[in-house]
């Protein structure tokens, strides 16, 4: 049994824990030259999402883009009070370009919440998270989840340059301590990050780590977790067909405690896995 499997919600019979949520766009503003924040009013089922889960978004057809499949996006903000969900996305190809065309009031069909998200062991005291690029989107709600469970959160945010860094406010609002590193300042190399984490650990022992978005960060997280004998989790990405565990397109090799490798579905068995389970992806 993998650790992540514990978090899988049991489907109450006769009711549907996931749905094609028909949401209304509240805002869809650029955060910087690459990223946008899409905020939508969401129905009940959508709002049941938790950190690490994702939605499969039906990107609208536009004059230039007609994406056929949905696109997976991590849940970045779950605002149950205002009935809103937020997605932080990078405009890269036709699906995200189409998403960028959504205007307030437009409908967004968002299937979810999907997948197995983060599960924080009870009694966790200090969560350290390291993320780069759009990986931040996935970790922000984990900060809130951890604070709600009474844990302290330290987030190391890595970026190419200071201007590409995002989510500082979102994370600080969630109650996390935020440390920024970037390639321009030269303090984002793995060894630098490891040193930083060792210092932090020496100050206040870290008992859970989370990461996503880069193989390098996964490597260093796995090493530190194993050294400190603490659990760690990683949110993985893969090209998806269905997002619902049906097509087996999104598989990654996952190793169990006995070293057996098996192809697991990022959308259904993940996207969050134990750091020791995932080899490379």
């Amino acid at each position, binding site marked *: 049994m993998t650790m992540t499997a514990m978090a899988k919600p049991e489907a109450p019979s006769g009711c*549907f824990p*996931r749905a094609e949520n028909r949401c209304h766009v509240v805002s869809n503003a650029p955060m910087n030259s690459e990223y946008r924040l899409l905020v939508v009013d969401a129905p009940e089922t959508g709002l049941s999402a938790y950190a690490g889960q994702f939605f499969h978004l039906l990107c609208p057809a536009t004059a230039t883009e007609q994406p*056929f499949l949905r696109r997976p996006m991590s849940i970045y903000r779950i605002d149950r009070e205002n009935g809103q969900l937020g997605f932080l996305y990078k405009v890269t190809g036709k699906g995200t370009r189409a998403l960028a065309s959504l205007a307030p009031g437009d409908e967004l069909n968002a299937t979810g919440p999907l997948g197995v998200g983060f599960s924080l062991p009870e009694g966790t005291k200090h969560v350290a998270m390291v993320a780069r690029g759009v990986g931040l989107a996935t970790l922000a709600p984990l900060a809130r989840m951890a604070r709600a469970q009474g844990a302290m959160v330290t987030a190391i945010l890595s970026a190419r340059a200071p201007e590409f860094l995002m989510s500082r406010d979102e994370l600080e609002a969630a109650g996390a301590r935020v440390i920024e590193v970037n390639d321009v300042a030269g303090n984002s190399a793995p060894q630098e990050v490891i040193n930083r984490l060792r210092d932090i650990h020496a100050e206040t022992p870290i008992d859970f780590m989370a990461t996503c978005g880069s193989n390098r960060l996964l490597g260093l997280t796995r090493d530190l977790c194993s050294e400190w004998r603490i659990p760690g989790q990683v949110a993985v990405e893969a*090209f998806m067909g269905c997002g619902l565990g049906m097509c087996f397109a*999104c598989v990654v090799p996952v190793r169990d405690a006995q070293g057996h490798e098996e*192809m697991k579905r990022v959308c259904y068995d993940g996207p969050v896995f134990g750091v020791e389970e995932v080899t490379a992806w």
Partner: protein
Amino acid sequence: MVDLFVTIGGVHMANPIMPASGSIAEGMADLVDLGKLGAIVLKTITPDIRQGVKPPRVVEYTDATLFSIGIPSKGPDYLLNHTVPFFARFGPPVIASISADTAEDFGTLAGYITDPRIAAIEANISCPNLRAHGRAFGMDPVAAAEVIRAMKANTDLPIWAKLTPNVGDIAEIARAVEDAGADAVVTANAILGMGINAETMTPRLGNVVGGLTGPAVKPVILRMVNQCAEAVKIPVIGCGGIATGEDVVEYMLAGASAVQIGTMNFVHTAAMEQSIAWVTDYCTRKNIARVAELTGALKLPVDQNSEQRGAVAL
């Protein structure tokens, strides 16, 4: 009230709409009331346990997808102990789907999974035949018939033969499996295709080739359904690019007795339910009492025989 009931190769269905093999799994039950479907067709299993092919496993086109999965399989015991019980509780007949490397293995596997909770077995004969240099069983009428005969010899369950569209004359294969005892044909599996990334000069799929599916293939498979329906007496199940109830009606007019929806389940989980509703409305406004009346009801030109429909003349 429109009568939606159909009987397909020994299986009684509340309506003619079901998922295509490999297009639903347990996850679908989290969103869709599977009790409303005509039948529940399971993903193909093999006798052995398989992990499938190297990713990437999917390429997207304007209204089609190219998938290459490689039939990951947890084997027959997992099917009987987990998959069948999971789906049997929803009510509609459960159709298992199998594949194997040789005709004998098809037969053995069909016998092994014969079980009262399974209403019929679909033979996925689009997979490579190890004895024929990787060509699919379904590309050769003799090999296709052998598979069906081996299965019939090992089980009393109805056998649906799922044909491959990668043939010149699909009617010939349909006739061969009918003669071998198949109770229905499913027309068809996916069209073999390839995707290339010009920038990297590499294939887009880990497995190089995959199956083209989705709305873009409809005109091709619709033609094949019509050819099969004219060639055999057993029911033909249409499968290829169905997205809406209108597509379902087109397939039935072409000769299908029921249909399967595949890729569209990945995009719109409500596709099957919405199709059932659309077909019901269609029959109502057209005063068609039984949906089964649609089968083969296409009005063809009187002055054209079916031979004139066997080749392209552009």
